[in-house]
């Protein structure tokens, strides 16, 4: 066979039959597609950049406007609080979901079903308007008339508080399933080993299962955090005072609708870029062990 290849029929002169000289397949289609993609991207960017109706200097002017800064801070605070309450709620609901008691586990299942099933915007409007059908929040001992705390809903439930509550309810519903998936990913052998060493179930979960489950839980939680940040924009429907609420309020006064949206977009991008970088580092560190 080898001799035949080195002297193929009909080849004259010195044949160059080494692999280094072989002609690779040319992917003409890929080249054409790449040019098209670049063209579309460039034209879209140009349409924004060169549009005479978008005044970019205005975007720059408002980027660090005190109101925008305050809105950004509230968005960050809302995201942080929403995330903290969601994670706590998610761990509790996930553990309830795995309880041997059927009543407790189905209560948790119903919670997950309800808060994952309701669109966030509806949930936020609902919580924001709680005052329409509940007048006072009262904590006391039933049937005794003993009241520990009572105040009007309208006073306690500021738009900011309503936003954090709405985001936490929805977030904990989603994250409970992530936490549960992580807990289930740890095999029975680990629980057996812990049990055989005399650990009770609380310590087994806390010291053996949860630390290992974190590996599985943290990457999707990073995505949830980024989703939460973007979801805070929805609280603008109840005037939550977040970045988008503020941007829209300004555009209501100066009629620079697109410019104000771009200001908000720039900040969302900036924060998400930072979060993505943090997530990347965190995942790398967790994967190391």
């Amino acid at each position, binding site marked *: 066979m080898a001799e035949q290849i080195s002297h193929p029929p009909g080849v004259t002169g010195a044949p160059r039959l080494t692999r280094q000289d072989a002609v690779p397949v040319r992917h003409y289609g890929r080249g054409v597609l790449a040019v098209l993609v670049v063209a579309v991207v460039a034209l879209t960017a140009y349409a924004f950049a060169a549009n005479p109706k978008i005044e970019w200097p205005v975007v720059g002017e408002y980027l660090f406007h005190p109101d925008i800064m305050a809105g950004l801070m509230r968005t960050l605070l809302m995201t942080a609080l929403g995330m903290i309450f969601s994670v706590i709620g998610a761990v509790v609901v996930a553990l309830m979901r795995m309880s041997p008691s059927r009543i407790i586990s189905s209560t948790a299942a119903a919670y997950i079903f309800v808060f994952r099933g309701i669109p966030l915007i509806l949930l936020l409007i609902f919580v924001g308007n709680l005052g329409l059908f509940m007048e006072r929040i009262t904590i006391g001992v039933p049937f005794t008339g003993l009241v520990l705390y009572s105040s009007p809903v309208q006073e306690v439930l500021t738009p900011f508080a309503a936003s954090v509550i709405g985001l936490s309810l929805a977030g904990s519903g989603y994250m409970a399933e992530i936490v549960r998936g992580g807990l289930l990913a740890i095999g029975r*052998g*680990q629980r*057996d*080993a*812990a*049990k*055989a*060493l*005399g*650990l*009770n*179930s609380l*310590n087994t979960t806390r*010291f*053996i299962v949860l*630390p*290992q489950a974190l590996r599985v839980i943290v990457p999707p939680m990073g995505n949830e955090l980024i989703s939460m940040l973007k979801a805070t924009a929805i609280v603008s429907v109840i005037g939550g005072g977040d970045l988008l609420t503020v941007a829209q309020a300004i555009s209501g006064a100066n009629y620079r609708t697109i410019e104000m949206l771009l200001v908000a977009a720039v900040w969302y991008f900036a924060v998400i870029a930072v979060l993505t970088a943090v997530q990347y580092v965190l995942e790398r560190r967790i994967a190391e*062990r």
Partner: protein
Amino acid sequence: MTAEPQTPADRPMVSIENVSKSYGHRQVLFDIDLAVAAGETVCLIGPSGCGKSTLLRCVNNLEDIDRGLVLVDGSLVGYRVHRGRLRELRENAACRQRTQVGMVFQHFNLFPHMTALENIAFAPVRVLGEDRTAARAHAQELLRSVGLADKADAYPSRLSGGQQQRVAIARALAMRPKVMLFDEPTSALDPELVGEVLNVMRDLAAGGMTMIVVTHEMGFAREVASRVVFMDAGRIVEQGPPHEVLGNPRHERSRAFLSAVLP
């Protein structure tokens, strides 16, 4: 290490009395009776699915049993007697009881997020309330006794299967158990790593530890066991000194099994 006949004076370290267990409709253990004296090494052998592992797990209450009783060093496993009735132990009491029995698993089940030393020292500190420094010193000593003094800071993923299993044995020993249970401790190992684990177990048996070993290592059973128990289909078919059960099995089932496994 002698299988002396029991006299009423020396009560068995482990006593399994009339134990039955089912998973749903499938019964896996039928009226098992087995007594293990202090210092004895009993090897449980038999075909896969015959109930050996389940029986072993019943001894430290990892499985609930349907009927019968298990006693370890004279105390009921999983229950206490109150006004002439059995009462199931609350979780913490059951946990305290489990610390008397060490267990080694087929798949080692080391905690992957802890170093070898932490694996060993964790439960003594957390469960027995031992002083941290003392527990770590004891763990280091145990690591040396299983030949892994230099692996204290290694995570399980950096250890070979044989090394992991030796750490797992050290981890169980750290609780100073009265009985050690081994559930097919060498079945998941590469053949060349089996010897190092069996050596550790041999030393342990020679040191007077009471051991119940589920195993397919007939060589180990022949050499180390004070008694071999052959199980099939949820029942004990025969038991006796290794040279009898392995060398001259009386029952057809044990003959068939042994002719298939022995070289």
